[in-house]
């Protein structure tokens, strides 16, 4: 009994006694993220001439920012905020530490990587601790997207409702469920307290904390749904702007 562990502990990548398909989940996650990253990069850096159509503005290009002398894609000025928010999100961290870093790829499955594991204690990963600052920025961005969705209802001086508005509103709802279910938000609105009933302020915070907790319980779901919805909202506007699709108007034209 001189070793610190029962040996046979998996030191090699993929070493495990598990006989189920443990690799399916990380493989799906890696595929999903990679596809989204490729699409978003292509839209932001290459295909960025299609930013808006009629009453609709793509979420990748909102808010509209004009900087004197800026000759590159405006998406560069915006996308670092939601990208940083998601990259430092506790759910996404779990997902990419497993799917990309394979540390570990799945539970009780051998990891990838050497002896020098520092987790999130050293640079650059220690910066994950600043997630709440990206939360503040993300809330501002979501605010603009709600504004865009409402603005799409008023076009050329009259009320207008098309499929595009529904797409934008759906995206705002899912993004809000994701953003306001954030673990850092859950902490800030009330989780940091030790006593929920001690003051009237704490009682209000407790109510908020309960709501955020409800969203937070499904944070992974909202992370994926909102990732798909924001990608789709952009793609929808792009297709209209490129003349590939035509919008379906319900009210107005």
């Amino acid at each position, binding site marked *: 009994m001189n*070793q*610190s562990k029962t040996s046979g502990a998996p030191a090699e990548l993929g070493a495990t*006694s598990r006989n189920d398909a443990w690799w399916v989940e990380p493989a799906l996650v890696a595929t999903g993220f990679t596809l989204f990253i490729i699409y978003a990069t292509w839209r932001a850096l290459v295909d960025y001439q299609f930013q808006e159509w009629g009453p609709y503005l793509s979420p990748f290009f909102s808010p509209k920012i004009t900087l004197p002398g800026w000759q590159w894609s405006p998406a560069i000025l915006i996308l670092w905020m939601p990208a940083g928010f998601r990259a430092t999100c506790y759910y996404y961290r779990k997902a990419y530490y497993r799917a990309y870093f394979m540390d570990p790829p799945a539970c009780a499955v051998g990891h990838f990587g050497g002896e020098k*594991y520092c987790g999130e*204690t050293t640079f650059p990963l*220690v910066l994950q*601790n600043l997630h709440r600052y990206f939360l503040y920025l993300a809330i501002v961005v979501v605010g603009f997207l709600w504004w865009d969705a409402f603005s799409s209802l008023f076009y050329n001086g009259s009320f207008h409702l098309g499929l595009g508005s529904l797409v934008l509103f759906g995206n705002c709802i899912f993004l809000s469920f994701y953003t306001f279910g954030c673990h850092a938000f859950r*902490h800030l609105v009330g989780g*940091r307290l030790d006593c929920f009933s*001690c003051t009237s302020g704490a009682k209000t915070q407790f109510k908020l904390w309960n709501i955020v907790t409800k969203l937070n319980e499904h944070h992974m779901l909202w992370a994926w749904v909102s990732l798909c919805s924001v990608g789709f909202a952009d793609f929808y506007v792009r297709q209209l702007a490129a003349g590939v699709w035509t919008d379906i108007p319900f009210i107005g034209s």
Partner: protein
Amino acid sequence: MREAVMKVFRGTDSGSGEFKTYKVPIEEGMVVLDAIHYIQGYLDPELAVRWNCKAAKCGSCSAEVNGHPALMCKSRMDHFPEGQEITVEPIKTFPLVKDLVTDVSWNYEVNKKIPAFKPSENADWTFMQEDIERVQEFRKCIECFLCQNVCHVLRDHDRKDVFYGPRFFVRMAGLEMHPLDTENRAGILKDQAGLGYCNITKCCTEVCPEEIHITDNAIIPLKERVVDEFYDPVAKLFKTIFGKKK
């Protein structure tokens, strides 16, 4: 009668130990621990196993069943497809004593390092349910150490020197969130306990037989408290101006 083929680890040293195969008759409602008891009783009386309650409440019978860290007394035999071999191994993160028994005493040493509950002198001992609910979830822990076993920081990286492990973050969260506790453990969490080594990959939550939301309800809230105290410049400034919370 239906039979299960059990492949059980035997030995006192993982280098020289090996798997032995046994055929065990299956009865209605049987769990893996019953099968191990059958082997002990009828086939191989020297097989070593630790258990106490057979009710998933004492936390003694932790093992790895088909590679999944689990309580043997909570792993039903009818959960496995018929005809498939079932492997049973000791948990891998702690030193082997014999067969399915490991020495988990490192955990008790870690436990002693945690500053105990410290109420204020004139504490009012009545408190509201909503103030203690979070702590009650953590008190469900049965110290099976399956979370410690599966955590890759201990299991793969073997960082017992710098990391207390999820079970003790659960305990510390229960103390930190207690409405009457006055101790501040944020510094210990960040430094000695090595909370930053956890990369929130959630395997502890996946294996916990008490279904404690270890990552979401204990570790992440503790990480956020450590951020308040050590990483967030604005929160720090706030604290210097308005004074410490406790």
